[in-house]
């Protein structure tokens, strides 16, 4: 069956360190993969999109990698701040269905950055 898996355990790190979150998928051939941030009681907010032919994408303190051989994406936040504390979700649309396909989310990983 198709699955998107993220670490269900919360990630606790010290301010200033780099946070690394993992997203693994099985039985998908994604054309692209996205990362979102979700705060309690609110809808997810888009952060980054990476396509299958891209290895890495950066935006300010954020970096995403995409390894289609390992079927894995890593999401990094450098110089983390307490304001980065939130749940981070990965999402994908399967290849060949990007015009009509479903956008499916992983279960998310909660990040807690301590001052």
């Amino acid at each position, binding site marked *: 069956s198709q699955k998107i898996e993220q670490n269900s355990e919360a990630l606790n790190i010290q301010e200033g360190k780099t946070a690394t979150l993992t997203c693994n998928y099985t039985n998908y051939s994604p054309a692209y993969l996205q990362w979102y941030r979700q705060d309690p*009681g*609110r809808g*997810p907010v888009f952060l980054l999109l990476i396509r299958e032919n891209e290895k890495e994408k950066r935006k300010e303190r954020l970096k995403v990698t995409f390894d289609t051989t390992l079927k894995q994406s890593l999401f990094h936040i450098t110089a983390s701040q307490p304001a980065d504390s939130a749940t981070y979700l990965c999402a994908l649309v399967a290849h060949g269905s*990007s015009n009509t396909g*479903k*956008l499916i989310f992983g279960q*998310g990983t909660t990040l807690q950055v301590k001052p």
Partner: protein
Amino acid sequence: EADIYQTPRYLVIGTGKKITLECSQTMGHDKMYWYQQDPGMELHLIHYSYGVNSTEKGDLSSESTVSRIRTEHFPLTLESARPSHTSQYLCASSQAATEAFFGQGTRLTVV
């Protein structure tokens, strides 16, 4: 700023009532989605649409129904609400191969 709106934000309703959750977007997006999310739990896709008059069920079975008569409007209806329908419902829209924009959600409580 995302131009996608959901109403109502909060709804408390009795068992057996019919309800419609509204979702509208002004971005001209073809794709629209409904997700269900319990507190602290993952987002489950229950319905999606890739254009007018197209609707598909998502991965999570739901007793709700949707319609897409106009590009900008994607309402979700529950014919007979039950306590098991208590949850947060999130609507989103996107164009192909781009980010999804989410509404603020409707928190539904069925008593």
